[in-house]
């Protein structure tokens, strides 16, 4: 088994609050790994530790065996990690295609001087970048909306555009933070199919934060549960569904009834 991402004893504190406490995680390559937990459990904070937004107080984050500690978010992107945000954070006045092209930044090379002179290499690269952006737009099912300002897109489209932008850097690992938040059951089902496609067609590994239990159980290969910053359980969907600590953390309701 090739390990894409591994965290070892990651701790992140905000003053007295321990938001992430000693979390170990092993995400195998080409798998869909979900992180669940009640509100405020520390899931987003955990993501921020992986992507370099926060530096953990303790522990280590390894990506294909290499430590990411001390790298800035832009450097981590170059290593092959991309993410989406819980509250959609598109570049709202830029068009959909431009958003994706910003996502391609790390794969492009043209400097400011080349841009002014328009060297043949730069022109070629730019052409390919537009092509690729169009292709990704198609891939996430937004063909025809490319020239719309991101903020004018419908909600579901914005979520998918954010994924397309993340994919534009050709990541090896994609971190999704509640991709179905605010979606209806139909859209959620589409998203499940889409996440599968991401893994199967693009061969990337996926780390997923999700509140919708039906989605989590249906899509994940493996699940870890966070509660008050600590990992309280880990296992296959069936194991998690029957784990008493998890049921307790989720207000004592059986998991099958729980839908956030």
């Amino acid at each position, binding site marked *: 088994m090739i390990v894409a991402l591994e965290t070892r004893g990651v701790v992140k504190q905000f003053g007295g609050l321990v938001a992430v406490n000693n979390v170990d995680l092993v995400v195998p390559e080409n798998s869909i790994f979900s992180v669940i937990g009640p509100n405020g459990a520390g899931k987003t904070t955990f993501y921020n530790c992986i992507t370099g937004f926060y530096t953990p107080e303790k522990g280590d984050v390894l990506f294909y065996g290499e430590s990411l500690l001390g790298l*800035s978010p832009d450097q981590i*992107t170059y290593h092959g990690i991309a993410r989406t945000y819980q509250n959609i954070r598109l570049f709202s006045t830029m*068009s959909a295609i431009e958003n994706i092209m910003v996502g391609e*930044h790390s794969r492009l090379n043209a400097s400011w001087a080349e841009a002014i002179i328009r060297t043949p290499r730069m022109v070629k690269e730019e052409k390919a970048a537009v*092509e690729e952006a169009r292709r990704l737009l198609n891939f996430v099912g937004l063909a025809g909306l*490319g*020239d719309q300002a991101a903020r004018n897109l419908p909600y579901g489209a914005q979520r998918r555009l954010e994924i397309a932008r993340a994919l534009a850097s050709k990541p090896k690992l994609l971190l999704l933070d509640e991709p179905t938040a605010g979606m209806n059951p139909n859209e959620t089902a589409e998203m499940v199919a889409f996440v599968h496609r991401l893994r199967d067609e693009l061969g990337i590994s996926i780390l997923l934060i999700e509140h919708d239990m039906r989605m989590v159980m249906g899509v994940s290969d493996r699940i870890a549960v966070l509660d008050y910053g600590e990992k309280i359980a880990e296992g296959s969907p069936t194991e998690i569904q029957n784990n008493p600590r998890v049921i307790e953390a989720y207000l004592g309701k059986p998991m099958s009834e729980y839908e956030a």
Partner: protein
Amino acid sequence: MKTQLKSSLNAGITFGIVSLFLYLIGFTTTASQIIQNLLKLKPASTVLGMDSLTFSFALFIGLIGLWAGVNQARSQKGQPFGTVLLSAVLTGLVHGLIVALAAYITGSLNASGVKMNTYLSQLLPASVKLFLFNQTPVLGALSQLAFLTLTALVGAAVTYGLMVSNVFGKLADAWRSMWKQVNAVPAIAKFRASPYFSYVMYSLLLLVMVFVPLRAGQYWNYTLGTVGIYVLLGLGLNIVVGLAGLLNLGYVAFFAIGAYTVALLTSPAPHGLVWNFWLVLPLGILAATLVGVLLVVPVLRMRGDYLAIVTLGFGEIIRILSKSDALTWLTGGPKGVNNVGGPVLFGWVFDDVSYLYLIFLSVLLAIFVTRRLQNSRVGRAWESMREDETVSRAMGINILKHKVLAFAIGAAFAGLGGVLFAARNQFTGPEDHNMMVSINVLSAVIVGGMGSIPGVIAGAFVLKGLPEILRELENYRVLAFATLLVVMMLVRPAGILPASRRKFEHENAPGNEGSKQ
């Protein structure tokens, strides 16, 4: 009904205060004189039984009255005709009462010999008389009341008619459908889509730029030159503020460095260097860029407001240094530097026309550079930074590097502007580089439309060209100008010519520059 009553009263009070204010600062008289001039009425002539100045005043105050009515009708959109008229009358009455009261009080005081202009310098007896339509206080006040009510009524009635018949909507539709038909003609559509279209447009522009300086005369060439230099500055600041989203309030510093570089290196005093202008031109740009980079690196980790304040201070420091007595040996001190050398080509000294060409050329160069950068990986990085710095960084963008780059290019444009400015005036001094330059350039960028090249050009014309045209207003130039800016921001909050986004998805030739406005 109650809310309508309230809104009518509120509007009446607002208009009353505006009219009162205009009166107290003497603008009613000035405006009347301007209208009199514009209509080419002789001071001695009479129109409709009034002398021409009173007539002009009636026009002016009548326009405000009409405006109140129009405003009221628009805010009561969808209401029945009766309600609209009633609310307009109410607004007019309140407006009129305030004005009439002011007219009566000042008129009576004036009649009893109180010299109000000792307190309010603009309340000259003539102004007060004019405000009463040159009648007795009682009659004049009543006339004001009646006139403002009537005009509000008329304004509201006409607006109601226009709104109901939707004349403007129909006109706009007609215009749009005509435009559509024109574009539907295959030959025209093809021409517009082809690169030749932009070539033709550019050639036309070029022709204008070549011929206007030949005809405009020295004064207007000077003004156009100033506008051109402001376009240059605006384009630079547009990159920093409009594209990269960094609020730089000390932009004038780089302008000053360009100006002082050319001044000190080409003037016989204080250093006696008298270098060639063409050699100093790139040096000025280089110096501004260098200082820009050096000074900005430590500051760039700050965000938003802090950056604005620090750059503001930096702009002032440069000016104060250039003014300081201790540095007179270096900078020429408060008196500035005279006899700055200008461009000479093969023994031929540039006159106003050729100098304007030089400025135009620089502007074209700046536009070229801006467009190429904007439509590239760098430009996209800047814009994403402006939108959301955190996410931008997560896209792999090196924020610090791109900020420095934006500052450096902005500083280079300003340096070029400074060189051209000082060499044209053959002088530079501390007062050429005060904070107002930064503020004006920033206003040009905002008024024109952030991030938009045509917007910057329009903004510079409004900011630097319009004041020349408004010269007639003399004392009220600043006021008129401020009013204009406020109105403009209300009517077009995104700027005169806001940035339009480039189309990628339905564009056949990606990277085709002509497709971006």
